[in-house]
């Protein structure tokens, strides 16, 4: 039994861990929001010991585990696969688990500040946690699954390597929402389908085995569809999987113009 529990600060979890050799203190500036207390988001800074090989996610863990347990963010695999921890890091959308501290260090021994904010354009529930539902609705709306008509084949649906290559780039999407929430059009018009939905439509529109291309093209021909894209290339820059998002959107636009 410990009698000191009541002396600990609310939400903190005990002693700070030892600072590893080679660690430098960086300032982690987080845009926080707690709907129960705040009427507006507010910036809060934490001094965190960081190794150059640490990822931004490690710094968030440090804050949550040792300084302020109320800090709220999503993360699951922490290895750039699940796409849970999309956030705005130093003004651009990135996965917290893929950005290394050494790439954010300010040169010349000046103190480093890393700003972290929730991705834009989706309602913030708490801190970095946003409501992904509008994003997922747009994804579902483009029918991101194989559509076929006629009799089922008795064996696999064969596809040549060349046909598979046609949509290879857009199969890489992990639905992290980095692209959609980097889009100025999406910030202002939440009704726009957004890059991620179009990428996932592209993945099936250009699949030789799929027969639902016309339906999807009809959906994306909508006023809130591909024509809202202003080719700002923020999505291409933001994608943690390196998908050429704008290129995919342009291919869908050209398919609408010339393929039918």
């Amino acid at each position: 039994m410990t009698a000191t529990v009541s002396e600990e600060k609310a939400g903190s979890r005990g002693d700070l861990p030892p600072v590893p050799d080679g660690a430098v203190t960086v300032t982690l500036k987080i845009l926080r929001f707690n709907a129960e207390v705040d009427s507006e988001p507010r910036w809060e800074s934490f001094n965190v010991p960081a190794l150059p090989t640490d990822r931004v996610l490690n710094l968030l863990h440090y804050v949550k585990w040792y300084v302020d347990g109320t800090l709220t963010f999503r993360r699951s695999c922490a290895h750039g696969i699940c796409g849970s921890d999309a956030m705005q890091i130093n003004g651009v959308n990135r996965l917290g688990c893929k950005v290394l501290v050494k790439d954010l260090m300010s040169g010349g021994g000046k103190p480093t500040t890393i700003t972290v904010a929730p991705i834009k354009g989706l309602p913030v529930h708490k801190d970095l946690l946003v409501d992904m539902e509008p994003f997922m609705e747009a994804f579902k709306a483009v029918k991101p699954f194989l559509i076929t008509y006629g009799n089922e084949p008795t064996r696999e649906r064969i596809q040549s390597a060349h046909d598979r290559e046609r949509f290879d780039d857009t199969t890489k999407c992990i639905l992290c929402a980095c692209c959609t929430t980097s889009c100025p059009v999406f910030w202002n018009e939440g009704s726009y389908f957004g890059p991620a939905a179009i990428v996932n439509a592209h993945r099936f529109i250009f699949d030789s085995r799929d027969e639902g291309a016309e339906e999807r093209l009809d959906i994306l021909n909508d006023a809130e569809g591909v024509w809202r894209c202003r080719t700002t290339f923020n999505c291409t820059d933001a994608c943690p999987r390196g998908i050429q998002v704008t290129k995919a959107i342009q291919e869908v636009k050209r398919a609408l113009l010339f393929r039918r």
Partner: protein
Amino acid sequence: MTDSAMATEQVVARGSRSNGTLYRGDPGMWSWVAHRITGVLTFFFLFAHVLDTALVRVSPNAYDQVIETYKSPIVNLLEVGLVGAVLYHALNGIRVMLVDFWAKGPKYQKPMLWTLLVVWVLVMVPGAYFMMVRTVSEMFGGS
């Protein structure tokens, strides 16, 4: 170093959907912002231009009077600005069309942007000189 790990600093951010942070977007985003601004400025010019030219139908005298007010250094500066805006809008318009219709356009969007900015500077430097040389010599040359 970490004992005083919390230094709270309050800066009010506006709006909850767009949280008031400045997005450091791709150069393509800034080219789009500039395209919008130059487009709107050009539209305002055209609006004024249609009005003043239509004035000649009302009264040639009034038209001459209005045109006379344009002969000032400030309007000369605005003219240079107009040429700059139209030139950027035109060049970036070509870039956007190439991004739209040329399969390799998205791949080369940045080189195309740098190219158009270089062309813009190469045209604007001598262009501004020849547009301003008369005004400047009249103001300071004392001819």
